[in-house]
């Protein structure tokens, strides 16, 4: 354990003045990776990886808040990302008037009824004394409520989904600018996180993990099967963009002039331009989030969170409301993840519930946090960039590796053919190899918590 006494931390507020050369070198290295991709492959590729990496970094920041700050093992990242995506649809798509007319209000009514049932049941549970009467009352409320809900809900849903199912068949959104979906994604995720936190945060480590994982699966199941909400597996495509369309740019005179002046090909430049627009929006969000989390983490708030993480029993005896704080970071972290989810859906301009797979949206983000260094915001961000770059680039890297392996072999040997056929699987294998290597040489993460 190497821990250098950190005298510079001073009144814990002062930002670490010590310039962390290791961190700077690592960021420079990752920057090289991106620039290298730009030079060797294309700037378009780099930028599209970069944009997703920004989103990944934000997700990693969110997970880092939960795990790094508070030791909460949230494996339901995917669910919050999906909720963010849902927000993008609900905010930016145009409302489908026909569908609303067919039963929109009735669906809302049903949802209110459903919520009321649950609230009533909880009230009954809290107010009535334990005993058979309470059980009976609860059962009556829940079962009655369920059937009432279904009776109102089902026909309305059937009518809404029947409205032109090939292209709509859902209620649509609010028709607002898609940028608003980002904070909304955060709010939606935060709301869900609050509900989850209220019930499940008492669970420990892996039990919390499986609980959150389960909730994420439930969220995805709802998004897949409730077509009236966001078309389910039929997907919502053509979500509006906050930035211009390439095709429009390619036709605008000013843009053609600009491209000319820069000596660039209009088509290539148009897609680079669009990506740069996205990138700058994302960077603003990322920087703001980093600033906020750095300030919070290097303050008495952060100190309190670390204490809670180290020892809950003792922190609680020292007057810290552990439950409330856990809920707080859980909600905040989830909001950040939800925001990233909305940003991602905006970038993709489509919501495809089927793409939400735990491996990609939960475990990959975890890898980012751990490889980057949990408990360190910069680490999480670095991990986000590095891992996302790898996730995309291991495909060509893996192929390259395979070529290397097979280079020495007889041109038409059976093994060589077989290996070259399997080249696609080098993708995950390479990822695994790199992951293990990184983890081996810095088990506490690339930029560890101080």
């Amino acid at each position, binding site marked *: *354990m190497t821990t250098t006494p950190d005298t510079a931390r001073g009144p814990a507020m002062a930002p670490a003045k010590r310039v962390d050369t290791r961190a700077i070198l690592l960021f420079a290295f990752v920057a090289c990776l991106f620039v290298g991709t730009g030079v060797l492959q294309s700037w378009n590729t780099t930028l599209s990886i970069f944009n997703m990496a920004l989103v990944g970094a934000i997700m990693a920041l969110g997970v880092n808040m939960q795990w790094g700050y508070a030791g909460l093992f949230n494996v339901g990242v995917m669910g919050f990302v999906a909720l963010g995506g849902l927000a993008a649809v609900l905010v930016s798509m145009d409302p489908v008037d026909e569908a609303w007319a067919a039963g929109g209000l009735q669906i809302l009514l049903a949802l209110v009824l459903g919520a009321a049932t649950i609230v009533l049941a909880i009230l009954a549970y809290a107010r009535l004394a334990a005993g058979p009467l309470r059980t009976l009352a609860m059962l009556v409320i829940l079962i009655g409520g369920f059937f009432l809900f279904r009776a109102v809900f089902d026909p309305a849903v059937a009518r809404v989904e029947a409205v032109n199912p090939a292209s709509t068949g859902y209620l649509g959104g609010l028709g607002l600018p898609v940028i608003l979906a980002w904070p909304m994604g955060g709010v939606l995720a935060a709301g869900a996180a609050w509900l989850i936190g209220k019930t499940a945060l008492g669970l420990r480590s892996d039990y919390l993990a499986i609980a959150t994982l389960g909730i994420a699966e439930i969220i995805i199941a709802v998004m897949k099967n409730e077509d009236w909400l966001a078309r389910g597996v039929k997907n919502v495509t053509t979500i509006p963009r906050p930035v211009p369309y390439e095709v429009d740019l390619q036709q605008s005179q000013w843009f053609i002039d600009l491209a000319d002046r820069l000596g660039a090909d209009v088509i290539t430049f148009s897609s680079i331009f669009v990506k740069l627009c996205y990138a700058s929006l994302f960077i603003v969000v990322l920087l703001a989030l980093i600033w906020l989390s750095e300030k919070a983490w290097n303050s*008495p708030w952060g100190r*309190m969170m670390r*204490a809670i993480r180290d020892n809950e029993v003792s922190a609680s*005896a020292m007057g810290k409301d552990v439950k409330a704080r856990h809920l707080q970071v859980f909600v905040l972290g989830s909001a950040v993840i939800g925001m990233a989810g909305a940003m991602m859906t905006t970038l993709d301009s489509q919501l495809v519930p089927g793409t939400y797979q735990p491996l990609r949206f939960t475990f990959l983000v975890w890898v980012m946090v751990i490889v980057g260094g949990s408990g360190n915001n910069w680490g999480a961000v670095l991990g986000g960039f590095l891992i996302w770059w790898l996730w995309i680039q291991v495909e060509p890297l893996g192929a390259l590796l395979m070529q290397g392996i097979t280079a020495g072999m007889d041109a038409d040997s059976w093994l060589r053919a077989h290996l070259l056929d399997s080249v696609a699987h080098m993708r995950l294998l390479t990822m695994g190899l790199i992951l293990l290597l990184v983890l081996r040489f810095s088990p506490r993460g690339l930029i560890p*918590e101080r």
Partner: protein
Amino acid sequence: MIIVQDLHKHFGGFHAVDGASLTIETGSITALIGPNGAGKTTLFNVIAGVLPPTSGRVVMDGEDITGLPPHVLFSKGLLRTFQIAHEFHSMTCRENLMMVPAGQSGETLWNTWFGRKRIADEERALRAKADEVLEFLTIEHLADHPAGQVSGGQKKLLELGRTMMVDAKIVFLDEVGAGVNRTLLNTIGDAIIRLNRERGYTFCVIEHDMDFIGRLCDPVIVMAEGKVLAQGTIDEIKADEAVIEAYLGTGLKNKDKLEGAEA
């Protein structure tokens, strides 16, 4: 100050605390002693809200505090230390102390972003206070050392130090002395007396070192098998047959033999 009424705490079929009733007077330094497994720590844990009681009540200054969570009790001025040190291992010793005071404005997220000046001032004061406590405990050289990597006794000191960071009404000390050097323990004893006299803290102390108890405490409550066995001044207790049999014992059996062998 604290009245415990017929408290029970059962673990499955085992009655760790089995109908204990006792009173801790305001301004006293009350000792709680008893054989290992008598239920002292369990009683502490119930009072401090770590464990829910099976039955019974705890009253503090006329207010029923049974089953309140620890952090609420803390805000009511009830503090406790742990028998097995519960330090925040990845934080420095100084931070371990600085985190204690409640109501720090820097614990509100909003302030960490937009109230930075105020936080800086508060932090300066806190830091000075923490350093003072560290110095008192003779571990000022460990201020920037991670608390997880100090010696066993130093952890206990830190544990005590945390109670000195705030103005408490009542402090429960669970075996502060175990593993602490006796000379230092005397200093701690002095501190406890000073806190008691000057700042009016009430103390309830679990300890197995009878000298320490004798110097500090009045009254002494003896627990055994989850119940209160005896109560009185130290001298009364030392003379109590039941207490001697259950707890104090009569000294080393082999002692004379040892000396005999040497002779």
